[in-house]
Every structure is written in C-alpha cells, then in structure tokens.
C-alpha cells in the first residue's frame, strides 16, 4: 500500500481538528440559541472558556489519589491520538502506519474509561453516578459503531479510514449502496449518543441527575478541567470526521495548495452540515429517560445489523 498522506500532512490535519473542535461546539451552541430565539454567546465562546480555565489554579479533593492529576492529560492524549487517524483534507492511507478505525474506536473507548476512572477516583456521588451511567451507555454505542465501520469495511477490504475514504471516491452519492443508507441512518441515531448530546445526554448542565458526561467532570478544575473540556470538543469533531470519512469523503487528488484548501473547505462544509443536524436534534427532542435510551440505541443497532446483513447476505 502506497502512503498518500505524508506525516506532515497528518500532523497538520490533527492540529486542524484540535483547533477547530471548540469552534464546532460554539457553532452548535449558537445555532441552538438562535433556534430558541436567544442571541446566544459568540462562536468563539468555547475558546474563551478554555483560555480562562487554563489560566486558573487547581483545587482537588483530599480523597483523590495521585493518578487523578494525570487523568485529564491522558484523556486529552488518547482523544488527540484518535484524531490523528481521521483523514481530514485528503483521503488515502497515511505514509506511516498509524492505525485503523478499530484503533480509533479503541482510543475513544480508552478516553471514556479514563474519564470514568477519574470520576470514581474523586469519590464524589455525582461523579460515580455519571461514570456508572456512562459505562451503561458505552457498551450499547461502541459495538454499533463498530458494525457500521465493518459494513463499510467489508466492501473496501480494509479498516484503515484513509483507504476506506479513498475507496469510496469523490462520486460518493452515486456510489451509495443500499447498505450505506442503513449504515448512515444508524450513524445519525448514534451521533447524539457519541457526542454526548440530547436525547441521550445533556451537555448544558451538570445539575440534573440525568447527566452523564458533565457529571464526571465535576471534580476537575483549572487546567485539568480545561484538558477534559478540550478533549470532549476534540472527541466530538473526531466522531463527525469519522462519519464523513465513512460516508462522504472528499478524495481530492493532486498535491498543490489549491487541492489542500479545497479539501479543507469541503471538510468544513461537511462538519457544518453534521453540526446543524446535531443542533436541530438537540432543539427538537427532549432528553430521554435513562431506561428509554437502550431502545433508542436499539434502533441504531437494528439499522447497523441490517446494513451488515445486506452486505454479507
């Protein structure tokens, strides 16, 4: 396999993902505010929040172990490593072997695991509650994500995301097979769960008992909380990038600066479309009761399973 994306390009894409992550959150929040007839904070508010958090000092509970301090850094590192596997500007396998889609899902799962361990370590009731719920939801989401990846990978014969994207080519809408529709439907069902949004989780509050992800961040403060927040921004854009790599990649050929800019622009448009989708879903649905969540995710599971069945049978 010939590498088509040099290491420099991969690093550039990674930097782009991490830098644009907060902007996606800002866009979704702004859209939600407009849909609720509010003015809302500016698009750059997440950046300001991050800057504020990184300037602050750290306070932590007496009960925490030494491991607690390193958790935010580890979570951020795992999420960023997952980001390196997503083809952003150009499709095609990277020049250096980095890992495939399963590695990406594994890294995201690792980040999730570390977050829960941190929440349990602090010993707070809310953290423990959030962690236990996150661990209830995660096993329902991850296998379905894997099945969606498999249903795309069966055709391409590889699980490497760049190669998958390249296999689909630029004329993706014409080349969509029946299974792709179902896989994409499954992905649309799972996206709110994976990015921690309504109807599965509520990202705006950590005061309700319904919270999942926000509850686990309660014990963190200062730069540590900044790392955790940045990691969740990155996780969101990585998930959106995974969807676009699987279902509508831009395989712009050629090396020049123009094609790179074109690829970056196409990526921005795709992420924007998915962000609008998330904002619409968040504004038009209520948060589900925790016991209803498995059924909701079950729709995604059935869609993914049917997609896989269509591919294999």
């Amino acid at each position, binding site marked *: 396999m010939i590498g088509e994306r040099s290491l420099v390009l991969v690093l550039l894409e990674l930097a782009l993902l991490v830098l644009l992550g907060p902007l996606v959150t800002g866009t979704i929040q702004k859209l939600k505010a407009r849909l609720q007839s509010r003015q809302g904070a500016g698009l750059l508010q997440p950046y300001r929040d991050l800057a504020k958090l990184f300037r602050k000092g750290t306070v932590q509970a007496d009960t925490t172990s030494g491991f607690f301090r390193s958790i935010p850094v580890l979570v951020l590192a795992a999420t960023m490593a997952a980001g390196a596997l997503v083809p952003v500007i150009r499709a095609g396998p990277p020049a250096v072997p980095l890992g495939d889609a399963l590695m990406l899902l594994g890294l995201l799962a690792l980040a999730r695991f570390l977050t829960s361990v941190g929440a349990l370590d602090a010993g707070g009731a809310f953290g423990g509650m959030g962690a236990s719920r996150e661990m209830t939801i995660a096993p329902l989401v991850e296998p379905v994500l894997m099945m969606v990846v498999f249903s795309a990978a069966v055709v391409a014969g590889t699980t490497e995301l760049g190669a998958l994207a390249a296999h689909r080519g630029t004329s993706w809408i014409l080349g969509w097979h029946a299974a792709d529709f179902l896989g994409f439907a499954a992905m649309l069902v799972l996206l709110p769960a994976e990015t921690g949004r309504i109807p599965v989780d509520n990202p705006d509050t950590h005061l309700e008992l319904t919270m999942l992800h926000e509850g686990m961040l309660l014990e963190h403060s200062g730069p540590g909380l900044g790392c955790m927040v940045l990691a969740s921004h990155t996780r969101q854009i990585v998930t959106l990038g995974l969807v676009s790599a699987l279902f509508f990649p831009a395989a712009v050929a050629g090396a020049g600066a123009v094609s790179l800019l074109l690829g970056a622009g196409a990526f921005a448009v795709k992420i924007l479309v998915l962000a609008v989708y998330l904002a619409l879903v968040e504004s038009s649905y209520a948060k589900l009761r925790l016991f209803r969540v498995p*059924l909701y995710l079950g729709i995604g599971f059935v869609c993914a399973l049917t997609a896989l069945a269509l591919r294999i*049978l």
Partner: protein
Amino acid sequence: MSAETVQTVIDNLGALLLFTMILIVAAGQIYRAIYAVAAQSFLIAVAGGVLATATGNVDLWVIAGITLTVKAIVLPWVLHWVVRRMNVRREIEPVIPDAATLALAVVVVVLSFHLSASLGPVRQAITGNALPVGISLTLSGVLVMATRKTALTQMVGLFASENGIFFTAMAVTQGMPLIIEIGVILDVILAALVMAIMVLRVRSTVDADIADLEELRG
C-alpha cells in the same frame, strides 16, 4: 434507464423501506408510526415510478399515482384524524417489551434475506433485493399487528404489511394487471374505514379497547 441502474435504485429504496419499517417497529408514539408508514408508502410510489420508467408499463404509473394519493396521503390522514378524535397521546401499548419486538424484527429481516438467498434462480429473476425486502416488510408488519394491543397500531401494521406485499408484487411481476391492483387498494381503503369507524364506535359506546375484548364471556 439501464437494468443495473434500476437494480441499484430499487436496492436503495429497499434499504430506506427497511429503515421506515424499523422506525415503525420502534415507534413509542402513534404519530411517529403514522408518519413512518406514510413515508414508506411514498417510497413504494417512487419505486413504482422507477419500475414504470424502466419497463414502459403505463399501468405502473397509474398504480404509483394511486399509491401516492391513497396510501401516502389519505390513509395516514384518516389515521391521524382518528387519533385526534380519540384524543390519545401514547397508546402504543406493546404486548411484549419494545426491545424484544425490535430483536424479533432483526430476526425477521435476517431470516428473510437468508431464505431468499437460498432460492437461487428464482432470486435472479427479480429486481435487486426486492424479494427479501418485501418479505421482511410483510412479516414485520404482521409482527407489529401481533405485538400491539390497540387497534390503531394494528392498522399501521396492516398498512406496512400491505406495503410489503405491494412492493414484492411490483418488483416480481413488473406490474400486475391494473384491475387486481385497484382491487387490492380498494380492499385496504375499506379495511381502514371499517376499522376507523369501529374503533371510534367501540370507544364512544363502551369505552373499551381491543385487548379488553378478550375478556368477553359468551
């Protein structure tokens, strides 16, 4: 249109039909089930249009038009009207848990694909995945009818089941005689009207539901 294009389009429509069926099976509110079944009938009409263009069969155009007006617009509207008249919000009331119904639906879909794969030469003669998709729609519709207590949801199941039969018939025969299709449509309309009137009457005179009828003693 070439045969391959038609096959791809029918395959894609089949996937979307399966998706609407999953939505119907998983719907927690009757409104969503009605919208999903309307979308399903719309897709069937589109499939009819595609097959009509491919085969040049004028009857198929007529059938697609009737499907669009009757099954995608009028019947969902009637259901909607009945739901509003009865003033009920969440009346899906499954007999077995929703998750179990979904699991059964998966079994139905996978089995129908598996079984039609074993048909061999018969399968080859049919456009794309129309046969397994049609079978799974029909059986899932029956599943919905069997696992819901209220008459309205059972009606949705009946429509979905009927859609499945219609889709298979269109794809297998490249257009049945017009008179048969119209007869089938009339049957469905009649069934819908009878059920709608009966549901309203039963509700207004004795305030009972279909499930309560089991406790009747002769």
